[in-house]
């Protein structure tokens, strides 16, 4: 009974969920937009990476793993660019005041 | 009570919420949002009926599922048209309200064609 992949999956996904929780706590507790963006991009991306890492033993190799990793990479790309756009907007708003 | 029944009860609640928002909120944009909420609640009801009709090795009856896909596309087309109407109303009268104007006369139109 190969339980080892499942144990690995549970541990990795729990760690990923913990990082998501940390990111959400940061979103709720940090004082302003820029620090909240920091919490969201760093912690959430790491959480997603851990969840993807944990799901890798369960999908077919190589195409399933390739799709999961590309989901993670695309979310990193769009998440970081959206965070930059929001941060630029906040900077411009503060400069106008 | 299994999970499908839970989703089946969620659908009517969404329909009720959407209808409430449609009736009570005076801003047209919020009415459009509530209308979309109402629509997705109805689609959820369809989805639960499709899930109940699971047979022949499928997870759900495919006919209601195809109807919901058609419905989502048509709902988007209606929303796009409604938003274009709303923005045109805003361009013409300077306000986005469905009331017939205040007794002191309407505000000056900002764009006359």
């Amino acid at each position, binding site marked *: 009974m190969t339980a080892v992949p499942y144990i690995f999956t549970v541990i990795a996904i729990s760690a990923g969920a913990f990082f998501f929780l940390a990111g959400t706590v940061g979103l709720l507790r940090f004082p302003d937009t820029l620090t909240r963006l920091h919490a969201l991009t760093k912690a959430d991306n790491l959480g997603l990476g851990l969840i993807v890492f944990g799901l890798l033993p369960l999908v077919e190799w190589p195409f399933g793993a390739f799709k999961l990793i590309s989901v993670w990479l695309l979310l990193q*790309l*769009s998440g970081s660019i959206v965070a*930059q*756009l929001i941060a630029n907007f906040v900077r411009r708003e503060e400069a106008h005041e | 009570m299994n*999970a499908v029944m*839970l989703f*089946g*009860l*969620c*659908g*009517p*609640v969404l*329909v*009720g*919420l*959407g*209808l*409430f928002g449609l*009736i*009570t*909120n*005076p*801003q047209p*944009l919020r009415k*459009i*949002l*509530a209308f979309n*909420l109402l629509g*997705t609640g109805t689609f959820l*009801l369809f*989805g639960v009926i499709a*899930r*109940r*009709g699971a*047979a*022949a090795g499928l997870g*759900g*009856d*495919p*006919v209601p*599922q*195809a*109807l*919901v*896909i*058609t419905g*989502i*596309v*048509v709902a*988007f*087309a209606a*929303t796009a048209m409604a*938003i274009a109407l*709303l*923005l*045109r109303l*805003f361009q013409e009268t300077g306000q*986005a309200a469905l009331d017939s104007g205040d007794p002191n006369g309407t505000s000056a139109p900002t*764009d006359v*064609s």
Partner: protein
Amino acid sequence: MTITFIFDAILVVLLLTVAIWIIVARAAFSAVLAFVAYGLLLAVVWVELSAIDIALTEAAIGSGVTGMILLGAASRLRETEAAVVSAGRPLILAAALLCAVIAAALAALVLSPPSTVFTLAPETMAHLHESGLGNPVAGVLFVYRAFDTLLEKVVVVLALVGVWSLAPDRFWGGIPGLQVSQQPNSVLTLLSQLLPPLGIVFGIYMFWTGANNPGGAFQGGTVLAAMWILVMIAGLQNPPSTNWRWLRVLVVLGPAIFLAIGLAGFGLAGAFLAYPPGYAKPLIIVAEAALTLSIGVALGLLAAGPPERVAQQ
């Protein structure tokens, strides 16, 4: 009380909380953001209901493109929110009573299902192999209820004509007033250079694999439209003039080819939208390819809005 039931229960609670937030939020902008989150949660609910095609459509069209045009409208209408008179207390109470009655009636319908479940799944699967398709939802959309799909595409074209007709007379045939990013060399430009190649491949893949797996013309076409909208918003390409003949040909190409195949069914197979045996899958693929292209162009134009300036000659 299995784990999946707890997960579904939490999902329903989240969904209803976000739905309530849509209704009671003060600013329209936060209501629209809640709507986008609501659409994504609903897509997860669709996966739980074993309707993956619907989940793809909801995430792409229901939450994605709809959320985009709602965000644009909310930002344009921001200054009208101050002068709003909320509804009076009697209307709110009466509306709440009415909605509670309707919701309770629908819930009673759900809780008392008929003793024998009527389903069309066995009949769908019985003849699906004759069309060469492996995805039963695609089979329903393009074989059994192909007339609905044809009319659905025509509705999208009609909506586009309706949106265009809302322009002032002097702007008819002009360039849509899509709000373009004002920062010429920002990270948005980087995204709109990196993402569209991947997005186009992915959109075509979603259309192609829809014959046997969840996917299809509408979902793939929406991804193509999203890539086009991204390129237009980043300023890499101007919105096209709605006068342009090829644009109009592309919008009409999908339903026109589908209609032609349907009319040819009169001669080849004896009924409207009937397929001759053995040729069903190639005809469906051709119709779906044209539909994917048309949907991409039509959804992009619907999101761009009515024309707001005249094309320079």
